[in-house]
């Protein structure tokens, strides 16, 4: 399969008042087109920073990142990256429809018939009837649905998700994860999810990258061979437990060593 994402020997340092701090050290990974990847690690392991490097929000200090063969800046300019933040980051003065259509407006492609309509995405994320609502009128989960719709409207090849459901309660979160898998399958993009939940990574991903903090390093890459579509009942299966245990070992093995 074609490589959707290739990261080669990437390091990221931030300047401090006295010296520098290494946020990411020598990260290398690849993700095939259409795959669902997850990055898991404790707070401060640089997983959100890595996502920002991929999205060309931050530049790497060293190393190379390629999205479908192109550097992040180019992929971003071509609108090949969809990004979902921890917070929904909807503009409070625009309706849900206007928020979802924002990327189309900025890209100057309002008359482009090849793009899905805001209505189609509203339906895809299950927000029918809320098109004219203001963000403040929606619950956190519904706001995040709108943010996902906004990230998908320009048909990106790569969907980056930075702990998108971290602020939601466990029940809503599980439901949103199922929804996200359905949306991902329908949209047919490559996805990379940052999370600090072992269960979430195991449930969602084809491939999990385990990171350790200070400095942020990749300590393991685990392939999850569970059948799709994934269902809640699957979480009770011994195969799922085996994956969770494998992830836990990878995460806590480093703690025992440290």
């Amino acid at each position, binding site marked *: 399969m074609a490589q959707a994402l290739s990261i080669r020997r990437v390091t990221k340092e931030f300047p401090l008042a006295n010296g520098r701090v290494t946020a990411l050290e020598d990260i290398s990974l690849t993700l095939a087109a259409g795959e669902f990847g997850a990055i898991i690690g404790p707070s401060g392991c640089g997983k959100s920073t890595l996502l920002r490097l991929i999205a060309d929000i931050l530049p790497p200090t060293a190393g190379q990142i390629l999205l479908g063969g192109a550097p992040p800046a180019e992929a*971003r300019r071509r609108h090949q990256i969809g990004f979902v933040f921890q917070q929904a980051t909807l503009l409070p*003065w625009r309706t849900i429809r206007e928020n979802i259509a924002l990327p189309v407006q900025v890209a100057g492609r309002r008359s482009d018939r090849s793009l899905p309509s805001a209505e189609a995405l509203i339906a895809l994320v299950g927000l029918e009837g809320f098109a004219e609502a203001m963000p403040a009128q929606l619950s956190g989960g519904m706001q995040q649905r709108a943010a996902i719709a906004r990230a998908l409207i320009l048909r990106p090849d790569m969907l980056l998700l930075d702990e998108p459901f971290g602020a939601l309660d466990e029940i809503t979160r599980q439901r949103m994860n199922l929804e996200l898998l359905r949306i991902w399958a329908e949209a047919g993009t490559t996805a990379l999810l940052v999370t600090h939940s072992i269960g979430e990574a195991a449930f969602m991903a084809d491939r999990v990258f385990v990171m350790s903090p200070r400095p942020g390093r990749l300590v393991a890459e685990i392939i999850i061979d569970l059948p799709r579509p994934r269902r809640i009942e699957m979480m009770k299966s011994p195969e799922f437990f085996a994956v969770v245990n494998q992830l836990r070992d990878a995460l806590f093995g480093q703690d025992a060593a440290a």
Partner: protein
Amino acid sequence: MKRISAIALPLLLAGGITLLLEAAQRAGLMPVTIPAPSEVWSRFAAAPEVVWYHLVPTLASASAGYGAALVVSLGFAAVATIVRRSAGTITNAAIILHAIPLIALTPLLVIWLGAGFETRAIIAAIACFFPILIGSIQGFRAIDAGAQELMHLLGANPWQRFRLLALPSALPYLFASMKIAAPAAVLGTIIAEWAGADRGLGILMLHALFAYQPPQVWIGIIACCVVAILAYFTVAALERLVVRGHAGDAAE
């Protein structure tokens, strides 16, 4: 209920003070410089068209000055936001201009530009540009960091960032400063009129002062108050029309 008391209580207070002044003046407790409210009223009722005659030019130059200040301040605030390095220079220049007492600057401007309508509008503009400039720069700075990352991701150009993000998120700050600036424009106009004009609330007061007619001075003061309050509420009403979706907006 809340709304009624918000209007009724200040009215009640003003009414109480009026009655108290009236009683004190009749009992001979007040100096002649504070006339009885009834005396001010009968003076006004005898020739209300006089107030109107002076009110119109004051309103005209205050509005013109306010509009000009708004355009210029927003322009400078936009430059300070887009070209980050210019922000310090713009703010400092504004502080210096604002630090010059208006009453000292006015005669100079009248000498340079003559005692015309434009001069009064310019002085009104100087009186009210500062809060608008500071408020809008502050507003443009208060943009959500996540929303800025979003705009970067979407590849928005500086103009799109300004129009789609900076301006709408600055509007609540902008309106707060515009509400402060509205009465200041009236104040600036009156100071300008004192330095030379043939019509205007400032002139009405000045003539009454030299003719030693305290009731007439009071008519001028009350007219200025009413204009300043109306200016404030006009901006507040405009805010309700323009600003939508912000947290505080739906409260009422």
